[in-house]
C-alpha cells in the first residue's frame, strides 16, 4: 500500500480540470496540424499520471507546460520522420471528439452542482450514506463498513455506484 498513490492521481486530476483549456491553447501553435492537439493533450496527462513523485514538483503549472513543450517537440520529430498513416488519422479524428472537454466547464458550475445534489438525494440509502460518510465526513472505508454493517469491499462498491450515477447524469445533461 502506498499512501502517496492517491495523491499522485489527485494532482493530475486537478491539473486536468484547471489547465485543460490552457494546455490546448498552448499546444495549438506548436503543431502543424491542429487535429493533433487532443492527442498531445492526452499524452501530457498520461505522462503526468506516470510521474512517481508529484510532491517533489514545486511549480505544477510550469511543470505541465514543460511536459507539453517536450511532447510537442517529440511529435514534430515523429511527424517529420514518418507520415501519418490512415489508422492514425482515424484515431486522431476520434480523439478530437473525445478529449476536447472540460467537464466542469461544459455545464454551468451551479447547474453542475445542482445535478449532483439531485442525484445524491436519489441514491439508494446505503450508497448515499457511503458517499456522505466518505466525501463529506471523511471516514475511512473500514469505518464506513462498520457503520453500515458491511465489508470494506462492499462499502467501496457503494462508492463506485455513487460515482457511476453522478457521471451518468452529467452525461445526460451535457
Amino acid at each position, binding site marked *: 500500500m502506498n499512501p502517496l498513490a492517491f495523491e499522485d492521481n489527485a494532482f493530475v*486530476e486537478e491539473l486536468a480540470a484547471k489547465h485543460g483549456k490552457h494546455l490546448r491553447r498552448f499546444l495549438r501553435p506548436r503543431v502543424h496540424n491542429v487535429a493533433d492537439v487532443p492527442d498531445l493533450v492526452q499524452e501530457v496527462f498520461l505522462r503526468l499520471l506516470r510521474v512517481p513523485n508529484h510532491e517533489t514538483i514545486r511549480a505544477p503549472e510550469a511543470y505541465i507546460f514543460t511536459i507539453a513543450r517536450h511532447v510537442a517537440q517529440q511529435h514534430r520529430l515523429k511527424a517529420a520522420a514518418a507520415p501519418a498513416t490512415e489508422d492514425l488519422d482515424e484515431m486522431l479524428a476520434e480523439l478530437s471528439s*473525445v478529449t476536447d472537454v472540460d467537464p466542469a466547464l461544459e455545464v454551468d458550475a451551479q447547474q453542475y452542482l445542482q445535478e449532483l445534489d439531485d442525484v445524491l438525494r436519489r441514491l439508494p440509502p446505503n450508497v448515499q450514506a457511503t458517499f456522505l460518510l466518505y466525501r463529506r465526513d471523511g471516514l475511512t472505508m473500514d469505518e464506513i463498513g462498520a457503520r453500515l454493517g458491511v465489508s470494506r469491499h462492499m462499502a467501496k462498491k457503494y462508492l*463506485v455506484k455513487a460515482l457511476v450515477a453522478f457521471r451518468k447524469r452529467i452525461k445526460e445533461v451535457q
Partner: protein
Amino acid sequence: MSHDRIRINTQISEEAAEWFVEFRTGDMDAAGRRAFDSWVRSSPEHLRAYLEIAAIWNEGGSLDVHKELNVDALISLA
C-alpha cells in the same frame, strides 16, 4: 443512443470509478498501478471517463456541506 452504447458507457464509467476508488482508498500497489496505466492507455474513452469522475469528485466536495442529509436515518433505511 443505442442500448449497446449505453451499456458500454456504463461499463467504462464503472471501471473508471473502480480505479478512482482504488486510488482514493490507498489500495493500489505497483501491479495495480501498471494495470491502471494499461487500462487508461487502451482507449481515449477510458482517460476521459477517469478525468470526468475526478472532476465529479472535486465538485462533490461541495455537496451537502451544511449536513442536511442525515446518515443515521439513511442507515436505518438501508
